[in-house]
């Protein structure tokens, strides 16, 4: 089942004293197929992060529909929306704030497992599984996020959202704050995971080379509108 947005518009009121409406997205339509990686490019201010947040259900569009399994997610029943939430996951840019700094890694993973309904006896197994997906040493478990590297954090963030077995994954500049050698590790990990799970991905980046490497299709966003949508080879 594809994930699609139809004619999405989003405007904010800007300014503290005189509120001026500001259009971030001006009618964007996009469809992501299962198993497909769509690269989304654009400068800051082009609306790419806003689009990602709308897809993840974090923001509501001013108008337009988000369709998943044929129904509009903002017209869903609470329980349906909750299951949508789990099917579409998101990974964020800044590794420094990707995990709660007040929790140990083990605690962060445990909370997700519990949320997914894993009982106390299954927790350890669940955490081991998540570590295996991220290719991480169990030694990181007792650390706090500021005691491990940015690359390790992004692996944990990735492994954690995969625990919900989402059908779609949105990645908002997941490697922009990382060094190239670490970026290569994460991109390779993402490729492997995607091959195994057949997820659809929306990969946001401002780096042409990265997007070309990872995507099946490249969509460019400029001033809140899609300016091109083509295979990465060109």
């Amino acid at each position, binding site marked *: 089942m594809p994930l699609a947005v139809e004619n999405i518009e989003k405007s904010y009121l800007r300014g503290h004293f005189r509120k001026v409406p500001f259009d971030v997205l001006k009618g964007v339509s996009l469809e992501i197929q299962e198993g497909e990686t769509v690269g989304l490019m654009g400068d800051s201010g082009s609306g790419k992060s806003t689009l990602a947040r709308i897809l993840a259900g974090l923001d509501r569009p001013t108008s337009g529909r988000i369709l998943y399994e044929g129904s509009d997610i903002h017209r869903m029943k609470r329980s349906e929306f909750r299951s949508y939430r789990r099917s579409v996951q998101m990974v964020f840019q*800044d590794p420094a704030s990707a*995990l709660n700094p007040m929790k140990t890694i083990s605690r962060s993973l445990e909370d997700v497992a519990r949320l997914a309904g894993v009982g106390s006896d299954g927790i350890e197994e669940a955490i081991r599984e998540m570590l295996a997906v991220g290719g991480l040493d169990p030694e990181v478990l007792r650390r706090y996020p500021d005691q491990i590297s940015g690359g390790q954090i992004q692996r944990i963030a990735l492994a954690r*959202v995969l625990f*919900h077995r989402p059908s779609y994954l949105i990645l908002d500049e997941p490697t922009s704050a990382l060094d190239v050698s670490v970026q290569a590790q994460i991109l390779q990990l993402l490729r492997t995971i995607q091959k195994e799970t057949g997820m659809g991905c929306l990969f946001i980046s401002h780096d042409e080379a990265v997007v070309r490497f990872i995507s099946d299709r490249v969509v460019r966003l400029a001033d809140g509108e899609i300016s091109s949508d083509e295979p990465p080879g060109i």
Partner: protein
Amino acid sequence: MNRAGLIGFAILSIFFLMAVAPWIFAPYDPYIRFTPYAEPGTDHILGTNDMGHDILSELIYSARASLFVGFVAAILATLLGVIIGIIAGYYRGWIEDLLMGVTDIFLMIPKIPMIIIIAAFLGSGIWVLILVFGAFSWTAIARIARSKVLQIRESGFVLSARCLGFSNRFIMAREIAPNLTHIVFPKFMLLAASAMITEASISFIGLGDPSMKSWGVMLSFAFTKGGLLNGMWWWYIPPGIAISVCVMAIALIGYSREKGADIGVRG
């Protein structure tokens, strides 16, 4: 914690012990009457007051009221402030506008005159002081909590928690609130300090709780019953010093936890 903070902690612990078990420290029951106006000597290290009460014992027994007012009022104000700040910062929109408008309005109400007038009408009592102080002191905490929440709510771990499907309550209580401790704790300590000074001030003008002994009440009697005019320094200096030292201990702990503004030599 730095050295100053540790010293503060040690001093505060002693005061707490005095508050919990004053009989360990005090030489007499503070209500026994000896010869009034006795000068400091071997029997009464700090002399006696106009009622003949041993001043040192009174001083030690007074720790309880002062600390109780300080910390209970601070806890009340902090809880209120943190809850309002988190809700305003997390939900944003009209809830934020409303709550922050209320905060701004409360911020401008002069606290001590307010407490004076309410205590004058309602009669003096420790709970009047605590409730009124709490009701008018949460504003600063609400402001800093909200501005911190505004930052945190956009950070990856909170957005991820929303995507992962955690409830808003879980996110506010378990993801956001713990991250506020290091900015709220110093303010909490300073609030406790400020509540203790307020108690001492209010008691000084005769609006203290007559059923409890406190340093402010002691000072008030020393001032009105001629302690100052007769040069009986042992009557009015010790309670004042006790307030200052205790408040300073609390403040030192607070400042030592304030990020960036830490006192003392580092790096």
